[in-house]
């Protein structure tokens, strides 16, 4: 297959970036999008040009590292998939494909398609965990959890922290991510004791990082590779409101 690519090139965080045209041929339809970029980079390196910097790690849809805004959508045209799970057969031979980094003030560009998503880590550091870990794992029956809650918590825990929700949101809001991280703990007994401080601290850090505000548009849910639900955002709002009312 043959493609025309328009790829965002930017030397460093401060430089002015621009879209650069590339054409690539002899692409196997079963290559992933990342493998296609590997081939392109190989060609560039052979010509003595600077290869395109991009994030990737597991290449099996679980680490959340691969990003890219492809053909106008976070992680490309596939529903519920990361960029490493996007295959070239999803495009038509001869297509022109736009490749841009995830864009948000809170995700500054490091180089080309690589963005600094450590804002998410700083939000997690404010309470996205259970502080104490005492002794061995106890018998599961010691802490009964309702099956429905366990399912919801597991669904929320599926979030891989990729940032597609921020990239897709017209407001660059990070509410889907933060709400998934708050929900997975709010729904389980282990998360109970710290729930109020967790909600307040994580939300405050989210605002401090300069993410936008949620206006309930739903683009995040539509583009999330792990199909995290908007109901988590409502749960986070509830957790936050209750915590602000009763926290001393």
């Amino acid at each position, binding site marked *: 297959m043959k493609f025309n690519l*328009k790829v*965002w090139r930017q030397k460093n965080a401060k430089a002015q*970036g621009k*879209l650069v045209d590339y054409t690539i041929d002899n692409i196997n339809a079963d290559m992933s999008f990342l493998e296609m970029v590997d081939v392109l980079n190989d060609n560039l390196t052979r010509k003595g040009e600077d290869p395109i910097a991009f994030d990737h790690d597991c290449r099996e849809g679980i680490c959340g590292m691969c990003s890219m*805004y492809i*053909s*106008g*959508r976070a992680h490309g045209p596939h529903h519920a998939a990361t960029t490493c799970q996007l295959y070239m057969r999803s495009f038509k031979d001869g297509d022109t494909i*736009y490749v*841009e980094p995830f*864009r*948000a*003030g*809170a995700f500054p560009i490091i180089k080309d398609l690589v963005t600094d998503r450590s804002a998410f880590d700083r939000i997690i550091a404010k309470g996205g965990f259970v502080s104490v870990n005492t002794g061995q794992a106890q018998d599961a029956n010691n802490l009964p959890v309702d099956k429905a809650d366990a399912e919801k918590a597991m669904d929320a825990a599926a979030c891989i922290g990729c940032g597609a929700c921020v990239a*897709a949101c*017209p*407001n*660059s*809001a990070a509410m889907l991510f933060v709400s998934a991280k708050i929900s997975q703990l709010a729904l389980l007994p282990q998360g109970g004791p710290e729930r109020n401080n967790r909600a307040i601290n994580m939300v405050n850090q989210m605002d401090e990082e*300069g*993410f*936008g*505000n*949620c*206006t*309930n*548009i*739903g*683009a995040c*849910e*539509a*583009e999330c590779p792990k199909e995290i639900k*908007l*109901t988590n*955002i*409502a*749960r*986070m*709002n*509830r*957790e*936050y*409101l209750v915590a602000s009312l009763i926290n001393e």
Partner: protein
Amino acid sequence: MGLTGLFLIFFLVVHASINGCIWFNDGGKTFLYYAHFMGTNFLVHIAEFGLFAGLILHIVDGLLLWKQNRDARPVKYSYSVVPEKSKWYSRSMGILGTLILFFLIVHLRNFWGPNRLNQITTGEELNLFDRMQEDFNNLWMVLLYVGGCFSLFWHLLHGFKSAFQSLGLNNVKYNQAIEIAGTAFAIIVPLVFALMPISFYFHLVH
């Protein structure tokens, strides 16, 4: 946003109910009875301050939201596709709100402003029913009102449901009910308002 929005929604219910009295076709008698109460009662005057405060808070809050959200993405995408599930009116709340605001300015100049001015200068209320009959003889005025209601419809179609989500008053069990109530409210209330100038224009009210 959600709290002030729901407050304004509550006002709309009161406003629509009283104005709906024009359809009693009693020459505006019932309508003027309630309009007189709303125009002169002390407690209502206090509530009126609350209403303006709520409206201004809603607008200021909305503008802040709009600015923060615009600034959260300093470099825009060169090419972007809007996912189907995200609705255009949800993305255009600021613009829809601004259209409503323009409408409100004209609307307040038509009725509220002259009436209060008259009350202050002469102590007398104006006959708002007569004024409606006059104003809504003008096709442009009728079209402007219908346009205002149309903007309100889209604004509410997002706003009603959105307020519940924002306040965390959202539950899988009740989502369906909120969805239906929100859509019904967004259709019925603006429609009732829009029918008023239309009824006057076609002399269906007398």
